[in-house]
């Protein structure tokens, strides 16, 4: 294939950063090749005339389902927090967001 890859190494690194997915060197090379190959196959969509066609985001005729604003019991905090990787009291403990 003489074609330029659809997605460059730099773009793969940029997308990985947007998605907050760490990648090994090997992953970067593999995804550059595989994503290019997959995107190459999507170019067929360009041939479809979609002038005046509205997009479909879901397939059922429901719009803006509203519920009454009522107080209801929630999950039990202690049960929910048993899954927390790091817990302090009734809180999730996270790493520092702002550097000192």
């Amino acid at each position: 294939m003489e074609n330029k890859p659809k997605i460059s190494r730099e773009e793969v690194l940029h997308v990985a950063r947007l998605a907050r997915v760490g990648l090994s060197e090997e992953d970067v090379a593999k995804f550059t090749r595989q994503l290019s190959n997959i995107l190459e196959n999507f170019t067929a969509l360009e041939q479809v005339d979609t002038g005046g066609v509205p997009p479909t985001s879901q397939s059922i005729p429901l719009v803006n389902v509203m519920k009454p604003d009522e107080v209801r019991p929630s999950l039990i905090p202690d049960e929910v927090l048993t899954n927390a990787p790091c817990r302090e009291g009734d809180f999730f403990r996270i790493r520092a967001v702002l550097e000192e």
Partner: protein
Amino acid sequence: MVNEYLTIHEARALLDKKEISSVELTQHILKRIEALEPRVKSFVTVMPEVALEQAKAADAAIAAGNIAPLTGIPMAIKDVICTKGIKTTCSSKMLANYVPPYDATVMQKLYAVGAVLVGKANMDEFAMGSSTENSTFFITHNPWDLTRVPGGSSGGSAAAVACGEAVFSLGSDTGGSIRQPAGFTSLVGMKPTYGRVSRYGLVAFASSLDQIGPLTLDVTDCALVMNVISGWDNCDSTSVSIPVPDYTRCFTSDLKGLRIGIPKEYFVKGMQPGVESAMKVAIARLEELGASVDWKVSLPHTSYALAVYYIIAPSEASANLARYDGVKYGYSYPDTDNMWEAMEKTRQFGFGAEVKRRIMLGTYALSAGYYDAYYLKAQKVRTLIRREFDEAFGKYDVLVTPTSPTVPFKIGEKTDNPLEMYLSDVCTLPINIAGVPAISIPAGFDNNLPIGMQIIGKPFAEETILRTAYAYEQATDWHKRRPGI
């Protein structure tokens, strides 16, 4: 002693006549699991004590005359459906130790009628895959040929029922993940209309495409499970309030007056000759049953469905899977004090290759500069695909196609080529894009490998699909064959 294989209605008859108890039936299933799991590997988790407790409660209910069709029947549940107090892993390292604090709506409904949970079934990680080879734990083997895949992503749910490790199971279907494994293991598998079954407690993959549905040994069982799991749910704002009929009441022995369309685009290049000839024989049988068959239906945008799907599903997945950040639950990378590094490493080591590939693909399709060309374009072509189905259903009651272009493939055959793996869902993806219901039923064999036939219906016309499937099933014996395992 009970048969190795029992349908729900056969087990029901034995339970009602007091020939067996639910505890005995559950013990029988647990023994079968013990004997076959080393070779098949359907389950991520088996809970004998929990199952026997539930069976005991079901026996008490039966003794008290409190009997529903699923009371005391052992089931397997795909490990993507939340079960309170029981690990729900999505076959991912990310959720390997996750114990949900609540039950999915479908679980609440199944427990309410006394169904018995024997185990959580293996799957492709986060339901992304077509072979169950993407499970982070192990590969599930096809009971019909242990060197082949059971399909995916609901491969564990399919294998379990196909070898008698459960009487029925639930799977989830985003692009074929119930129907393709049902076809690969000679089961009945239904993807209901989008909105028919609540998705509350189904770990989200692609929210506009996901549906939960049953995998069963026959069409009657499919209808019995659909009767329980269908319906509007306050917890799922995309569930629909259309009343749920008794799906067992639509059955007829002939198909007089039924209009069937055969879309020619589904007889794709690369379809195996064995599949094509089995389909022709099966469709001729539908005609003999009284249906009118039009072989010249065309859905010209079908060839774009693969691209539309692999833009929309990964895009939605990239948003849905943003929640796995190592803070609230799931795997968390331990060896750093830096928040961003912790998040990136958590997702690097917590997700497998296919999940990362799809997150990358989806993030790319949604990113600035590419959104219009990929995501918006795909949504517009989605509209065209839906319109084609709408038009076809003006003329036909159901459309019939193969479920997959091939019989089950060998383990390892497609793992190095993601695109080729994606092609195995080419006949099932368009149905999720349109949001319509479809079923796969046993329709033949090629060298003892199962072939599935897909029947597609109008939105919320599951009854028409089940009627067609039932009449065909009564006229054939495919559903009575069992793997020699």
